[in-house]
């Protein structure tokens, strides 16, 4: 058991407003707006850009000392007006920061005043979410923002339709693209919230766009109250009431919750949920992919059986990764998340119960110092997580299979596919090859056949 430190060293989490900003980046023609000092927006932009390599405009109310004393209302309003002048914006997503939460700015009231003051203008949808950075991680901010969108933009049940709301959590643009295409194949019309598939992995431009194409259209969000159901991946950061819960309570949209579909069993479970809404059986492509995945799992099983993995990152993502690693015979020995979570241990245990004989060390509220300390005696063969684990991988001289966010030291992180049978197969190939590459590199004769 590692020591319990007061300080945090090399955090395995980001701050709450970051998650909210990312969610708003996945809404069509939306501008995320951080109500706080200028640095928050700039730091997050830089952090996000280094992963996605896309323009990431995040506005800020750029509060100074005066605002900290007298309140940030005037700057917030002026800032929204300026965003409206510069961008053809359909939604402004205002997330608070530690600064404005601490001075007690009532953003909801400011926005109402703004709507009244400028009622002569055609106003974008104004959504606000409370994201004090001293409370939770970027994922709490993410789930709170999705919930705010469901709560504030969906104003009425509206016309009932056969579409399905999909709340996928934080995945890669490749994942969002995959999920959209899967919906099309299966004959299910998804409203996916958010949708970063194009906004954060777009095409080259012939002229500069003030905002990228893509994202969930605001009109579709408004219609979520009339959907046939809501499918939500993961545990929504333990929110008392998640976005799916809001839609259920207010508009009677039935909510289905399932693990992020990473690996065989989690994808099976998702496909089962999908089948409840779909008119047909599993699409042929997915049936083939499933077969190919099983075929590969047999072909490669011996290379990776019993390999000891350290897995870290966001709780929903890590739970799903564990489910996958367990079922292919990799033994997670340490599973960690930066979030404080009383659900995490049970969720990981549950994901591994059927397929692993021994349970890993499971840590919530962990930083990389904790992970390093815990891993010291565990002799891991692999790390699975985002790029901030590189330091540990290097110290241990073991491969790091890069997944999730952020990936700041490799190219193409936005195009890593994790979900579906296809995503599982891609991850499987990378895992096996990482093991083979290491044994080949370390082999004194360097065999050419493996």
């Amino acid at each position: 058991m590692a020591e319990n430190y007061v300080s945090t060293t090399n955090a395995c989490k980001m701050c709450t407003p970051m998650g909210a900003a990312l969610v708003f980046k996945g809404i069509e023609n939306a501008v995320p707006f951080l109500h706080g000092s200028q640095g928050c927006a700039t730091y997050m932009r830089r952090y996000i850009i280094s992963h996605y390599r896309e323009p990431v405009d995040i506005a800020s109310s750029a509060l100074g000392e005066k605002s900290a004393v007298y309140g940030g209302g005037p700057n917030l309003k002026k800032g929204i007006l300026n965003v409206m002048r510069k961008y053809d914006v359909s939604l402004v997503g205002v997330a608070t920061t530690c600064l404005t939460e601490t001075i007690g700015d009532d953003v909801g009231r400011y926005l109402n005043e703004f709507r009244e003051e400028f009622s002569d203008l055609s106003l974008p949808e104004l959504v606000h979410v409370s994201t004090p950075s001293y409370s939770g991680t970027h994922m709490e901010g993410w789930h709170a923002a999705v919930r705010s969108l469901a709560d504030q933009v969906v104003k009425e049940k509206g016309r009932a339709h056969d579409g399905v709301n999909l709340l996928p959590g934080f995945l890669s643009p490749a994942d969002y693209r995959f999920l959209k295409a899967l919906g099309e194949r299966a004959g299910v019309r998804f409203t996916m919230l958010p949708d970063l598939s194009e906004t954060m992995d777009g095409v080259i431009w012939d002229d500069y766009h003030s905002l990228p194409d893509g994202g969930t259209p605001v009109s579709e969000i408004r219609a979520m109250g009339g959907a046939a159901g809501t499918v939500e991946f993961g545990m929504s950061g333990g929110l008392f009431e998640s976005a799916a819960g809001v839609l259920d309570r207010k508009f009677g949209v039935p909510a289905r919750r399932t693990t992020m579909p990473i690996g065989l069993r989690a994808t099976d479970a998702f496909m089962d949920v999908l089948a409840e809404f779909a008119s047909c059986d599993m699409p042929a492509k997915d049936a083939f992919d499933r077969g190919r995945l099983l075929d590969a799992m047999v072909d490669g099983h011996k290379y990776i059986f019993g390999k000891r993995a350290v897995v870290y990152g966001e709780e929903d993502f890590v739970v799903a990764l564990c489910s996958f690693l367990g079922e292919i015979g990799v033994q997670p020995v340490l599973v960690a998340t930066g979030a404080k979570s009383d659900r995490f241990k049970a969720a990981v245990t549950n994901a591994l119960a059927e397929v692993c004989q021994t349970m890993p060390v499971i840590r919530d509220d962990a930083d990389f110092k904790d992970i390093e300390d815990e891993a010291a005696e565990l002799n891991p063969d692999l790390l699975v997580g985002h790029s901030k684990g590189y330091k540990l991988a290097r110290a241990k001289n073991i491969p790091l299979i890069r997944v999730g966010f952020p990936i700041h030291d490799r190219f193409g992180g936005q195009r890593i596919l994790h979900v579906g049978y296809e995503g599982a197969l891609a991850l499987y190939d990378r895992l096996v090859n990482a093991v083979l590459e290491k044994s080949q590199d370390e082999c004194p004769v360097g065999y050419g056949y493996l």
Partner: protein
Amino acid sequence: MSQTILDERKSQVHRIGEEPFAMACNRPSLAGAVSQRACVFCGSRVVLYPIADALHLVHGPIGCATYTWDIRGAISSGPQLHRLSFSTDLQEMDVIFGGEKKLEASLRELISLHSPKAAFVYSTCIVGLIGDDMEAVCRRVAADTGIPVLPVMSEGFKGNKREGYTAACKAMFRLVGTGDATGISPMSVNILGDFNLAGETWIVREYFRKMGVEVVANVTGDGRVDDIRRCHGAALNLVQCSGATMELAKMMQAEYGTPYQRVSYLGVEDMADSLYKVADFFADQDPTIKARTVELVRAELSDLMPKLAELRQDLEGKKVAMYVGGSFKAFSLIKAFRHLGMRVVVVGSQTGTEEDYKELAEISDPGTIIVDDANPLELAQFIKEKDVDVFVGGVKERPIAYKLGVGFCDHNHERKIALEGFVGMYNFAREIHASVMSPVWRFMPRRSPARAACAAKEAVNG
């Protein structure tokens, strides 16, 4: 209703020759304008970050530490402590009841774990609001642990990056003069405002070694606490990146009478001039230093210039836009680009002063756009308006250039290639060449609209 340059921003943009020079600057960033600037904390963090044997503890919620973990390309020849990210990771209860206890416990714990030579404690927005007495905590811990524990008053909202530089200089100044300065050569300098990105400070130090000049302290690239403590013993302060460290030089001049000179290690002339300035300064003490320096520069240039000439053949006439943090870099780069036959047509900075911009206007060609505290949409418009071939900036500017199919050179503090010194000038030229000469630009829709239109039509027709 979209408008690229907001009315309130117009006075921060100047087009040379189209109007008499007048520029507003050093203003707070405009709300909602998506400034490329960061905050006070950022200014302090970037300046102090490279001090490799110090503990850098960020007192605040986690974000400020997460986003600055191992962020700079500032390398150390020894300790690597600066590359770890330490935070008090304040939680709701700390905000309500105050964070002093957690700060004190964190400091004691981290100092005992890592045995640093000093600790810098960075204040963030929240600390400024909840009123933690950082000074008192630091004093207590310093008394018990026997190392300097220095508060850096860098609350994010209390200005922009420049105020952060000031806070960093004030913190460092508390170290200066606390070390033993005996045995320092009368021909000695401190290197201020260089951050040893990709080992750049080492290149410059090697030149000084050849000239016979001792370097007492690097402030702060590959910096060490003990060097800074005794750097008041140096005969001269050399100040690059003036925004960041000029204040320290001024404080040292006032307190210790140490003179300073502004230098730049970027480009051909500025690099050579900087060495000559040092040689002139010490000429009385060592009459041969001038000759040694001339010889050094001659040897470097005879190696460099033919290589530059070769690259220039490809680069002649290409147009450049640049957006940098401080304007010192802009001056040097404008000159450096002239060696490559390239023209700078847009130049801007986050935190330039009116004098900086005036000087830039004087050395730039007519028609050049000068901009203070720009934002993505403005920069994109300038790139298009001037039809530039390559953009020089940092990570946040990169996608602006790339989305328009324009080349890019990272000249910010994350860079991993040394761009200073004569060898750096060659690396810089190769960087520019590698971007400008790539065959990919010819395929970009902006350059081949017919193809793009065709592709769009196909897409529509399915």
